[in-house]
């Protein structure tokens, strides 16, 4: 009988703690595909559009939107970045807590200077990342994102096939949301609001 008496309040306490824990860790009511716990944390070693070496850790404290593309992409990449610019505008001052990370899958042509002019034509909170092909491949593989280069026209141009997904990470660098360019802008604004409202800088 005695061990049982001790056990019961302990069980209640444990239950209580568990419930309290559940409450504070209640999953965010995200509208887009929730990838929390299904994708690795943001991590890379690349060069930003100012030519500075950066890692994923440099963006801790910010909500980040990771998108793969290349500057010689006149249609889908600019459309996606223009849409993300609209999303950032809709977030108002909150957008300062977010960064668009545009990673080039065409580092041969996309130097930091080219990337700098490109991303700044879209949004002041966009960062262009380029680097060693191996480092870009590692980042792309990390998020099961794919890209390929295909021989193109005679003048040396070539076409690049690339993943259209946008990966959203929270301020701690945890993967949270997977969006596609066709996702509703309202849903993306909604989810970014949730992530930006959660935990202030650092």
């Amino acid at each position: 009988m005695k061990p049982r008496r001790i056990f019961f309040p302990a069980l209640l306490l444990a239950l209580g703690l568990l419930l309290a824990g559940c409450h504070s860790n209640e999953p965010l009511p995200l509208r887009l595909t929730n990838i929390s716990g299904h994708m690795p944390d943001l991590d890379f070693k690349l060069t930003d559009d100012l030519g500075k070496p950066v890692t994923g850790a440099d963006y801790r404290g910010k909500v980040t939107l990771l998108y793969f593309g290349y500057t010689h992409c006149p249609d889908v990449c600019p459309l996606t970045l223009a849409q993300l610019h609209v999303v950032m505008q809709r977030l108002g001052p909150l957008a300062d807590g977010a960064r668009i990370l545009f990673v080039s899958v065409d580092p041969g042509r996309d130097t930091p200077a080219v990337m700098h002019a490109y991303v700044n034509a879209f949004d002041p909170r966009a960062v262009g990342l380029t680097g060693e092909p191996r480092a870009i491949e590692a980042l792309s593989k990390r998020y099961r994102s794919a890209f390929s280069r295909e021989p193109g026209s005679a003048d040396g141009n070539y076409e690049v096939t690339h993943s259209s997904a946008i990966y959203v990470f929270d301020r701690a660098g945890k993967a949270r949301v997977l969006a596609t360019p066709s996702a509703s802008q309202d849903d993306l604004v909604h989810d970014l609001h949730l992530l930006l409202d959660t935990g202030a800088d650092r």
Partner: protein
Amino acid sequence: MKSTPLSLLLGGLLFAGGAHATAAEHVHASHAWIRLLPGDLPAGAYVTLQNDGDQPAALSGASSAQYADVMLHHSSTAGGMSRMTMVDAMTVPAHGQAVLAPAGYHLMLMQPTRPVKAGDTVVLTLKFADGSALDTRFIARPANAIDAGDEHAGH
């Protein structure tokens, strides 16, 4: 009314080949715009084409004094992958319309011969498979524009 088909036929004979020039005569362009990108990066051009004719028209490409090379392209997304492919022609159905819009058909404008800035008007000559051509004025818009900026016009 009876004379209409006859005059069309005569007109066709006069211009040496009835099919010649008809596509451009029947197609009207609207919402024509270019998304400018920094430096010499290729830009995308978009336009809505309305065909009032009884025959489908086939847009095969374009040319411009402003760009050394223009190609008709199509973007598509399948299985989470975006790709861009060159296409020979895009059909504008008879009494219908076809739209060149972001994430679909577009004209890829390469190697500008002189700088273009937002607000400029650029003339592109749309070319049809029957050999006819249609000069169209495109408005140059900034990189982060999402449309022609004239969404209230013509609707």
